[in-house]
């Protein structure tokens, strides 16, 4: 209760929208709870001053430090009078909350899968044990249910990427659900990078059938080609775009719903006093718990869908015989093939 009275005192009225946006966005420094913020390094590059590194604690409360000031989450150069200097472009490579969470997830992934790898070396020729036996079904699921059926015989080349992708999204979805966790997979920059990598892998794997299908879609009348070719080309970019938006929107939406539910407590308190706030808390807690359960499911589901769709796109790019051939007489009709 002390927490939100502090907030009310600071910002006047409690604004649930601001609270939600604050939680789903990135920040300099990691706010685990109100008033408990872990300072993180701020790394800036400007053309005139080069690389600068300092602690985020210096700029946490809108102070000016070293000629920099944080305004609405972004760090700006300020003039001597304290005004924001728009003429200086500040490249912000800070270890923000999301980057810290990203590093943490990377460390977890490395530790976990190195121990799994060691398990395979230690238990060679024996049944899997411990974390190895816990993760083996998931690895086999990615291999047998996602990679193999969608990519086909060449799946082995893409398996390391798909496994990394799956576990990266999964671990970050789960870390995001922890109290105080960062909304990393609900950040457009992260999903953009994942989608672009999937896009590059798909298109660099594309064989002649894939490109031929884009330039001349099979079974389409010539008159429709001026329409179909742009559609196909847009489709190439639409696929990764949908990947990017899907993951970002699903995870962010989940966070917004849980935060909105919890925000109901504070709205009730603002409307009817502390007693009303306490009265709605149990009901809201039940809903929030239910939503957390759903989010846990979504964490797995979105990791699965992103990986599945990526392998389907790769599969369509490396497919040897196009579906439109119906597999009839392709080999026999063309002896040079």
């Amino acid at each position, binding site marked *: 209760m002390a927490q939100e009275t502090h907030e009310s005192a600071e910002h006047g009225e409690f604004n649930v929208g601001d609270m939600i946006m604050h939680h789903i966005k990135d920040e300099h420094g990691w706010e685990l709870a109100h008033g408990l913020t872990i300072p993180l390094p701020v790394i800036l590059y400007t053309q005139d001053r080069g690389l600068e590194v300092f602690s985020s604690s210096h700029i946490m409360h809108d102070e000016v430090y070293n000629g920099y000031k944080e305004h609405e989450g972004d760090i700006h150069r300020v003039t001597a009078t304290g005004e924001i200097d728009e003429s200086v472009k500040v490249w912000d490579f800070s270890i923000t909350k999301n980057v810290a969470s*990203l590093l943490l997830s990377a460390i977890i992934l490395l530790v976990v*899968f190195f121990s799994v790898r060691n398990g395979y070396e230690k238990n060679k020729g024996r049944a899997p044990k411990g974390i190895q036996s816990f993760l083996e079904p998931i690895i086999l699921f990615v291999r047998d249910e996602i990679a193999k059926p969608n990519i086909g015989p060449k799946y082995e080349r893409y*398996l*390391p*990427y798909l496994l*990394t992708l799956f576990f990266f999204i999964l671990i970050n979805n789960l870390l995001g659900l922890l109290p105080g966790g960062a909304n990393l997979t609900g950040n457009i*920059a992260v999903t*953009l990078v994942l989608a672009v*990598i999937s896009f590059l892998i798909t298109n660099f794997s594309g064989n002649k059938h894939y490109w031929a299908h884009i330039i001349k879609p099979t079974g389409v009348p010539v008159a429709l080609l001026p329409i179909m070719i742009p559609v196909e080309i847009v489709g190439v970019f639409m696929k990764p775009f949908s990947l990017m938006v899907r993951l970002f929107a699903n995870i962010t939406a989940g966070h917004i719903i849980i935060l909105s539910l919890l925000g109901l407590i504070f709205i009730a308190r603002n409307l009817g006093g502390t007693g009303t706030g306490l009265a709605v808390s149990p009901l809201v807690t039940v809903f929030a718990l239910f939503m957390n359960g759903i989010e846990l499911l979504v964490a797995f589901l979105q990791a699965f869908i992103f990986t599945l769709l990526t392998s389907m796109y790769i599969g369509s790019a490396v497919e040897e015989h196009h579906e439109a051939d119906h597999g009839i007489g392709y080999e026999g009709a063309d002896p040079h093939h």
Partner: protein
Amino acid sequence: MDLLTPDIGLLFWQVVIFLGIFLILRAFAWKPITASLKEREDNIQSALDLAEKTRAEMAALKADNEKLLAQARVERDVILRGAKETADKMVADARDKAAAEGQRMLELARESMQNERQALVAQVKKEVVTLSLDIAEKVLRRELNDKASQEQLIKDLVTNSHLN
């Protein structure tokens, strides 16, 4: 730090860290793990294949045994039947031979009895003749002591001889 505009910093770190863990995991985790999984699956598969093969071999062996057994049974039956036939034939032959022998011995006996009887008859005849001659001699000797009777005899003889 807007919701829909990617930050350059996070973009940069995401590329660096994601590619970093991808490359590290690929080299040191995914390759050994997938290789181990494949190896284990191959082992299991080959063990299963071996079991299947052994089972097929056992079945073939059993079938062979059955076949051999059936063959042996047939052979045994053939031998038994042959033996029985031989035995029956031997018994029949023996019976025939015994019957023939009996018949022959009977014939012999009959023949010898016939001979005996003939010899006996001849003997008897001879005895009778001798006896008759003896009697006749004795009678004659006595008759001839009397003159009248001698004459009578001669007369009779002459008469009979005429008759003859």
